[in-house]
């Protein structure tokens, strides 16, 4: 126990300040720092924390490693109010990787059907965006949008963690109702 406490104290808090992620809408002047803004945005738009179900629909596992990295203390996305959950039934958003393999097509569709509104979908990585190096074939359906509707994409092979976060926030912000009172609950 003593070793653990000492290591925790010695390590300190390594979480980095969120870099500026461009927003599609103008911000009120008193918006605070980037992390707070993101946190507030999620609350304003969804009225709750954002829960994500990750679905590997055929990737090489590279994108999964970067999504894992998003959970490390440097990025600390749980601190922003974003949490990965175990079931699509608990999720606001699906984070889908890979070219969709023919064998995962039905599983992906059923996962999408099981997800409640707002049912946001982010396609992660070159393969999820376009089919990537694997393309379309007897065994691959290609990009995620060929199987389920996609709200945001993030290219890269694999995209680094902050790019994935950017796409997650893009999808959330796109969901903001056009007529909604900015800053108020949607």
């Amino acid at each position, binding site marked *: 126990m003593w070793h653990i406490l000492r290591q925790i104290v010695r390590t300190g808090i390594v979480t980095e300040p969120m870099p500026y992620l461009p927003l599609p809408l103008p911000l009120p002047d008193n918006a605070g720092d980037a992390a707070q803004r993101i946190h507030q945005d999620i609350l304003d738009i969804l009225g709750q924390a954002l829960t994500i179900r990750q679905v590997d629909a*055929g990737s090489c596992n590279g994108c999964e490693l970067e999504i894992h990295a998003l959970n490390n203390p440097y990025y600390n996305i749980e601190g922003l109010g974003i949490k*990965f959950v175990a079931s699509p039934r608990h999720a606001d958003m699906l984070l889908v990787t890979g070219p969709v393999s023919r064998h995962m097509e039905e599983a992906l569709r059923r996962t999408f059907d099981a997800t409640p509104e707002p049912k946001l979908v982010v396609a992660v990585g070159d393969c999820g965006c376009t089919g990537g190096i694997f393309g379309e074939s007897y065994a691959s359906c290609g990009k995620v949008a060929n199987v389920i509707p996609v709200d945001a994409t993030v290219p890269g092979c694999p995209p680094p963690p902050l790019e994935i976060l950017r796409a997650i926030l893009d999808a959330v912000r796109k969901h903001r109702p056009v007529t909604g009172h900015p800053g108020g609950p949607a």
Partner: protein
Amino acid sequence: MWGVERQPPSSEIVVCAAFAVREGLVWLELPIDDSAAGFPDLAPLFPCAVRMQRGMVDLSGLRAEGSHDQRPWLDHGLWSSARAPLRSGGGSVPADSGALPTDYAFVRVEGDGVHEIAVGPVHAGIIEPGHFRFSVVGEKVLRLEQHLGYVHKGIERRFTELAPLDAHRLAGRVSGDSTVAFAWAYCMALESAWRGEVPQRALWLRATMLERERVANHLGDLGALGNDAALSFGLAQFSRLREDWQRLSREAFGHRFMMDAIVPGGVALDVSVPMRDRLRQQCDAIEREVHVLRTIYDEHAGLQDRFLTTGRVTPELAARLGLTGLAGRASGQAFDLRCDHSWDPFDQFNVAMAPNRNGDVAARVSVRFDEVFESLRLIRALCSGLPQGELRVDLQPVHAPSIGAGWVEAWRGEVFVALEVGADGRITRCHCHDPSWQNWPVLEHAVIGNIVPDFPLINKSFNLSYSGHDL
């Protein structure tokens, strides 16, 4: 094991098998006149051949005679082509949409109180897809049966559509966590097929990357294993170290996983002297931290209670089933290509193996710790002694059918690439083999008698590849 249909005029159909023996690697070929005739079943001698043979039926339409398990393995009944995808004219038809996979005939376990738990293909964590069928009584696992193939995306057919000098990118995406190892194995195969001599400097940089890949994955797994035993402190600490590691990989090699840094004939980029100093200093820093964390893991009673005796594979069982790589070394299978069949430049470093005979989760954790320290030593030595010279040579096609093999000790175990290039300079066949093929069936045995909640921990302690297996 893999099947090949050679290009015309021979159009020969060949069954191939690679055997790792004391002297090296033996690549055997059996030409068969009529693919309906089949080939001798290797499963009675080598249990790990069962799934490979089932995969060969699915992909190449070649069947082992008298094989007791005739169920499809990689094919879920959704590919609409009439011919096997790796045969000429096969797999060219786009898949039908909307069709459902065929039912898979799992082995039923019957008895009082026995019930089944079906898991997957979409798993609860951020991991690759596959299906696990547990037969349990109470909380105890009587039997686990795996059903894989969900991430089969036609990689081996895709290889035949790429130019040999470009296909290292595809090899580097067979399994994203082993991108360096597969890219190296592919390049090694092409370089031996086309008789290319890779400069020493490039080999040393490749070895540096391979060891960095090993450390990155071991750090990630050590954290995840702590987390699976409810010590989230371990995940936080190790994932922090892994992030530091990947960030420097990006600075030094242009990519957080070093994808596409290994190219046919050499490497894509050089590492400057100041950067080599930073790489060495990072090894020192990580070594200090991992020593502290190892002490914490070793002294944590709750953690050791979960690790010790859990998911045990005895050395006898491991030998019989052909357990390989890291998991094999944790069960008394003292093989490591870097020691037994050392290749340039590892033959200059006298790599120390990390053997253990206990075969449980604790043993697989211990091997990872030992291998991290050895890899850090190797990286420091590689950075210190990096020879001068070219970074790459231009490979020239030989205008005749040529074959080459690549064999590399990846972090998970040995990866193997068999490459055949035709006289026209196109890839006839590229077969990629991940050690997960041997180790997945052993995981089924490791779980027997354990409780269901220990499965994630046992599974993570093996950390096998889905994509590298399904292709």
